[in-house]
């Protein structure tokens, strides 16, 4: 029984090992090996956390939406999907937070300010808060089914904000002549090692995402199971109560 309570399996242990290894490698490559950027100098190294953070947050939120849809579809309805959705959203909020923090640090170094009221930044902040709202709705209480249904609907709506964040740059610039941000988009010239490091960052963040979601999903399941295995006990307790009253 006590083994069931752990959230790790041999697979997640192995995965955890690779994650730690990957982070170490990323730090080495990102900070010591990869070159400084022509325009941005050393500060470009922030990119290796910032960009994977944002992308993985997107992935996490899409995953939340997909599992929510799977939950809502009658044939695949299962609370497992709901827990995956919840776990994924939590990890997504974490990654989005990483991206926000690293982004504003980067902004301090390159633009001279932590925050500016650019469309990308603002929509990112909206996205972040939307998922905090999603988590708040998950925490409202009620039965598991209730929680699952409410939050699934919300997740399907919230995911629509991602294109808004992604295309905000163009949407905004086409109509509004704000100074466009240097280094934004694909016009950055990257050398091979930089590109590889970025790629590594994405891989490492992906592994980290899987690892975190697996753990979180399992611990959510244990919480639910506590309630459900609680159910058998509670049922027999409640039945016993009836016999007491009967006599």
């Amino acid at each position, binding site marked *: 029984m006590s083994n069931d309570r752990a959230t790790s399996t041999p697979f997640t242990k192995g995965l955890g090992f690779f994650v730690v290894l990957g982070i170490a490698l990323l730090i080495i490559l990102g900070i010591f090996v990869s070159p400084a950027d022509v325009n941005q100098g050393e500060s470009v190294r922030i990119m290796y956390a910032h960009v994977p953070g944002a992308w993985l947050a997107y992935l996490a939120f899409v995953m939340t939406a997909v599992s929510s849809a799977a939950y*809502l579809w009658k044939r695949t309805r299962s609370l497992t999907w709901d827990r995956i959705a919840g776990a994924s959203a939590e990890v997504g909020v974490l990654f989005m937070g990483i991206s926000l923090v690293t982004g504003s640090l980067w902004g301090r170094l390159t633009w001279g300010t932590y925050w500016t009221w650019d469309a990308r930044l*603002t929509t990112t902040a*909206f*996205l972040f*808060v*939307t998922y*905090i*709202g999603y988590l*708040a*709705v998950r925490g*409202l*209480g*009620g*039965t598991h*089914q*209730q929680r699952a*249904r*409410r939050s*699934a*609907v*919300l997740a*399907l*709506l919230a995911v*629509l*904000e991602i294109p*808004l964040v992604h295309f905000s740059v163009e*949407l905004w610039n*086409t*109509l*509004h002549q704000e100074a466009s941000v240097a280094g934004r988009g694909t016009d950055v010239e990257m050398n091979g090692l930089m590109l590889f490091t970025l790629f590594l960052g994405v891989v490492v963040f992906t592994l980290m995402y899987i690892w975190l979601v697996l753990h979180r999903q399992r611990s959510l399941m244990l919480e639910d199971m506590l309630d459900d295995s609680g159910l058998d006990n509670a049922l027999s307790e409640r039945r016993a109560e009836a016999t007491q009253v009967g006599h």
Partner: protein
Amino acid sequence: MSNAGQQRFTGTTVIGTARLIAAKDLRVELRSRVLLNQVLPFALIVMVMFAFALDSDAVLERVAPGLVWLAAMFSTLIMVSRSFAVETADGALDQLRSAGVPAMGIFIGKMMALMAQLVVLVTLLILTAVVLYRAELSWAGSVLLVTTGLTATCGLAAVGTLYGGLAAGAKGRETLLPLLLLPVVAPVLIGATRATESAFGTRGVSTGQGWPWLGLLAVFAVLFSVSGAVAFGPLLDD
């Protein structure tokens, strides 16, 4: 009474329900006059207060359209919470649900009633802005303005009703609703502001530049009207 058996099911259709609910909401509003006596003054105060906070004429001229929509948005917030407070005060929403009244009808009805009230409000706000800031409206500008007003209002009403229903049953709904609503309506705020700016010709923006923003508003309105109508049932259900 033999024909009553046939008649009975009219009320259970989506359209019938929507009409019933909208009529009820508007009647409650007519009795309590909350829009006129409370929301409208509130919206005006919001506009004036921000104007004060900015306190420089040059800035103000530029942000006037934004103020209209800011006020509209906050008014939506309080009107939605009022609209659902009426339903939950004595458990009527529960009762509707337990009577098997089609959720889609409830959504459409409440959204229509909210939209009707919002249209009145937004019209008055825009008129105020036109008068206060001596905006000059061309024909093309007026068309854009009216279309923008209707589309944005529709979007606000749809998303407000959807999240209002979600928060209605929850405890702490007073705080949950603004949290859910604000980040989602922000695009409406931006789109409507830009479209209004170009209708007014603020900052030398031409009218033509407003139409793409209207597209954004229309997408938003359609998206939330449809998904609201579909998702309202599952949201209310527990």
